[in-house]
Structure formats: structure tokens, C-alpha cells
């Protein structure tokens, strides 16, 4: 049985170094053996381990990777698939202007984006104007919840035949609280009441409804803990000393941060693999 992992930089293993004074932007054997997949791989003595996570990836990246993988020669229905979901704020947007996708990580801050890109867009007034107006118009937790719910349901659809998997939230689960507090009309959720006098019943995208849908008809080996459990990041923040579990940038877990999360979720993995 292979282990195959999907996620963002947390699952990829960003900033996990054997020399903490030197950042290595490339993947390495050390990262592979000490990131969360490496830990699961060695603890459960699996046959192989492929890491399909993307540094800076979005949930749409995860969907791209997962759909590619399932249709590839490497795929085996007996693989153990691990997915660490990321912030729903991140998106893949193909831009006619940049002629590639805009990777809006870690957030929708234009200065951060321009600092991290080699696009000629740094001088584009049109791009800057679009970015700023897009943030002003569209960045809110309602759009996040819509995007997140769709991706979760899509992942469930892709894995409907797959025997063993676990899905957790690596970072950013606060959007649910923001969503509840936002003063945006949920008329997108209303039943059209005109014809049959049906009226709004319940918000289908509250996290409990989504959780129930994700768990509907799954087996005990198909495990969604992205809503029941806190995110990996929140777990570390709430239970450990910051310097012990986060690297200097505070953006990624140390090896201890990886190991603590593994110990926390191993009860779920034991159920699936033992």
C-alpha cells in the first residue's frame, strides 16, 4: 500500500530543514522523511510514499492534483490518501493579462503578491486596479464558504470509489466564524418560493450541514475530520509553546509541530490502517 499526500506547504514540508539556519526552497530527502507524510510512512511501514502537495497551493490545486493522480498509471485503489486542506481564500484564477494563473498566496495583499512574483505586472495599472477592486467587491467569507464547500464535495466525488483516505484542515478554519458574522444576505440559499410557497429552511452551507453531507455514505475508512477537528495550525497554537512548534517565520510547523499533529490524528489513521 502506497501513501499519497495532497495539500499546501504544510503537507509539502516547507521550512523543514536539517540545518535550521538555511532555508532550502527545493524538496529534499530530509523534507520527505520528516514532513507529515514521512512520519505516517515510517510509522505504518507503507510500501511507498508520493507527495503531491504544492507549496503555496490552493484547494483547487489539490483538486487538480487529485484528479490527475486518480487517472494516472500510478493510481492504486488500495493507496492510503491523505489530504490537508488549505485556506479557501486561495484560488486559481487564469489571467488573460498575465497569461498564467494568479497565485494569491498567502493572502490577497497586492504588495506581497508583487514581492513574490516575477510578472511584468508589477508596473501594470490595469492589473493593480483589478486586484484592488476584486478585493473590494469579492473577498468575503461567503465566497470562501461557497468555494470551500464545492471543493470538499468535489473531492468526495473523486474519492467515491477510493477505499482509504483522511481529510483534515491544515490552516485557516476561521472563515466559518466570519461567515456567520457577515451581514450578507443569504438569498443565494433561498428556495424560490413563488411557485410552491416554499421558504428558506436552513443554511445549506453552515458547517454542520456540510459536515453531514461529507460523511453521508462514507465508510469508516473514508474519514473527514476537517470540520470536527480544529485545523493543524490551530491545534499547535492552542496546545504548545510557539517556539517549539513553529519555525522562525511562524508560517510552518517544526518537526515537533509535525510530530504532535501526527500523534493527535493517529487515532483516526489507526482505525483506517490497523
Amino acid at each position: 500500500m502506497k501513501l499519497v499526500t495532497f495539500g499546501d506547504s504544510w503537507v509539502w514540508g516547507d521550512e523543514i530543514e536539517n540545518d535550521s539556519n538555511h532555508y532550502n526552497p527545493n524538496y529534499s530527502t530530509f523534507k520527505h522523511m520528516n514532513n507529515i507524510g514521512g512520519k505516517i510512512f515510517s510509522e505504518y511501514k507503507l510500501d511507498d510514499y508520493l507527495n503531491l502537495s504544492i507549496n503555496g497551493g490552493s484547494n483547487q490545486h489539490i483538486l487538480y492534483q487529485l484528479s490527475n493522480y486518480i487517472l494516472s498509471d500510478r493510481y492504486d485503489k488500495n493507496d492510503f490518501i491523505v489530504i490537508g486542506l488549505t485556506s479557501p481564500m486561495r484560488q486559481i484564477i487564469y489571467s488573460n493579462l498575465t497569461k498564467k494563473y494568479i497565485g494569491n498566496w498567502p493572502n490577497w495583499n497586492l504588495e506581497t503578491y508583487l514581492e513574490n512574483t516575477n510578472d511584468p505586472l508589477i508596473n501594470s495599472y490595469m492589473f493593480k486596479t483589478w486586484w484592488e477592486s476584486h478585493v473590494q467587491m469579492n473577498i468575503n467569507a461567503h465566497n470562501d464558504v461557497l468555494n470551500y464547500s464545492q471543493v470538499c464535495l468535489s473531492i468526495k466525488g473523486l474519492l467515491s470509489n477510493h477505499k482509504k483516505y483522511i481529510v483534515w484542515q491544515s490552516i485557516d478554519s476561521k472563515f466559518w466564524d466570519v461567515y456567520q458574522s457577515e451581514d450578507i444576505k443569504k438569498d443565494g440559499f433561498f428556495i424560490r418560493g413563488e411557485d410552491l410557497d416554499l421558504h428558506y429552511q436552513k443554511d445549506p452551507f453552515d458547517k454542520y450541514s456540510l459536515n453531514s453531507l461529507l460523511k453521508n455514505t462514507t465508510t469508516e475508512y473514508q474519514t473527514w475530520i476537517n470540520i470536527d477537528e480544529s485545523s493543524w495550525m490551530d491545534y499547535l497554537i492552542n496546545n504548545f509553546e510557539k517556539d517549539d512548534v513553529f519555525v522562525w517565520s511562524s508560517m510552518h510547523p517544526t518537526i515537533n509541530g509535525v510530530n504532535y499533529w501526527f500523534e493527535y490524528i493517529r487515532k483516526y489513521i489507526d482505525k483506517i490502517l490497523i
Partner: protein
Amino acid sequence: MKLVTFGCSYVWGDELIPNTPEYRNLNNIGGIIYKNHKFDDYINFAVCGASNERILLQILEYKNSKYYSEDDFILVGLSGLSRKLNYINIYNQAFTIPHWNNMHLTNFEDEEFVNWFNLDKKINLNYKNQLTRYGINLLAIKSAISDNKYIVFQSIDDVDFSYDSVTKESYIKNVPLKLSTIKNQTDLYSTVLFEKEKIKKEILKSTNKNQLWLNFDYESWFYFIKNKHQPNVYETLKKGNHPSELGHQIWYRDFLKKYIENII
């Protein structure tokens, strides 16, 4: 068993005259199916101007309501691929773009909003974005209705044209993807969501004989009645390009009927 329908203005029954709920729901596609088969009830959840995201929302709303039953037969008429539902901060409400035409900006006329709308159209309207969204919409809808008998078809738009057109957008680089192993890290560029046969294979996977996806292999309702069935297109399509009573009847009689009979 209830008949429960989802879709855009086509399934809703836009432009059927007189414009009353009673007449519309007797003569729209759901009404015709209801009359011709033995259903206990018929509920039409379709919404004028709906995107496929909006259709998903309506399905989830229904699944969370007292009206849901695993015994129900679900009919989904998918909408245009360029339509998208956004929640807009300055209006505190949802805005669905029926298509990229300013005629739909009534009530959304603030200068800032119109500027964003025009820029977003210019910068982000392309087939790669559309097909990414379409693939996600379909997979999500599949998950949401997996317990029921259903038929999904395309009401409007030309799906093949979108998949053909995306191949011409090679000037927009695909998202770089990686495979990391203990030995090395390699680049991957294949993107399943842009390839019709591949995404179709994923959609059809683990469906049963009572769960039909007709959107990939057959043209949309709009093109079906426009191209094949009438020398005089105005007998089947109204001025606003919605099916007439005859357009609804033809879609049932010449296309959907055989599939419905096989299922129920």
C-alpha cells in the same frame, strides 16, 4: 416518488405565457414529465438566471429541507459555463452573472462595481477558468445527489465548444503541479478538468443505471430544438431564446422520455 427539478430559466419555464405559477408548472419540462409519469408530487427548484453554483445551492437547500427524500427522482438542467455566482460586498448580496453582458447590471450600477465587472471580464473571462469551475460544479453536484435517481443534462451552452476552445488557450500557461518523492521532484502539467473524456470518466464513475449524465454526449436543449426540430425556430424558441411550450414538449418527447422510462 416526487419529481424534483433544478436548473436555470429553461427548467423554470421562463417566457411561458401566461406567466403564472400554475400555467408554468403544468407546461414546463417538469410539468410535462409529471403529467406523463406516475409521480406523487412535482417541485420545481429552478431559478431564472441561475449558474451551476446556484443550482448546487438549490440542491443543498433541498437536501436540508423536509421535502428531501432518497426516493425522489431528480432532474438537473445545467446552465451556462460562463455564469458564476459571487457574493458582492458593496451590495451585501449574491450576484449571478448570466452572461458577460452589461444588460444584466440593472440594480448593480455603482461605478466601482461596473469598473470591477468590466475589468474582471477583460482579465479573467477564458475557458480555463470556465472549465475549472464547470468540473468542480459537476463533481460537487454528483456528490450532493449521489443517493437519488437522477438525470443531468445541459440546458444551454455548447460544452464541446468549450472543451475544444480551451485547447486553443495554450498561451495561458497551465498551473504548474509537482510530484515529490524521496528521489526527486518532477513537474506535472496534465489537467484533467480541461479534458472532456477524462472528467466525464470521473463523473460517471460509481454511478448506477438510474443516474445518468447526458451533458457530455448530447448537445444542449437549446441547440437541440434550435438545430434539429423546427424549420421555423420561432415555434420552439421564444424571443428571449427560451423554449416555447412546443420547445418543452419536444425536449421531453424526442430526448428525455426514453431515459426517464428506463429509470422509472
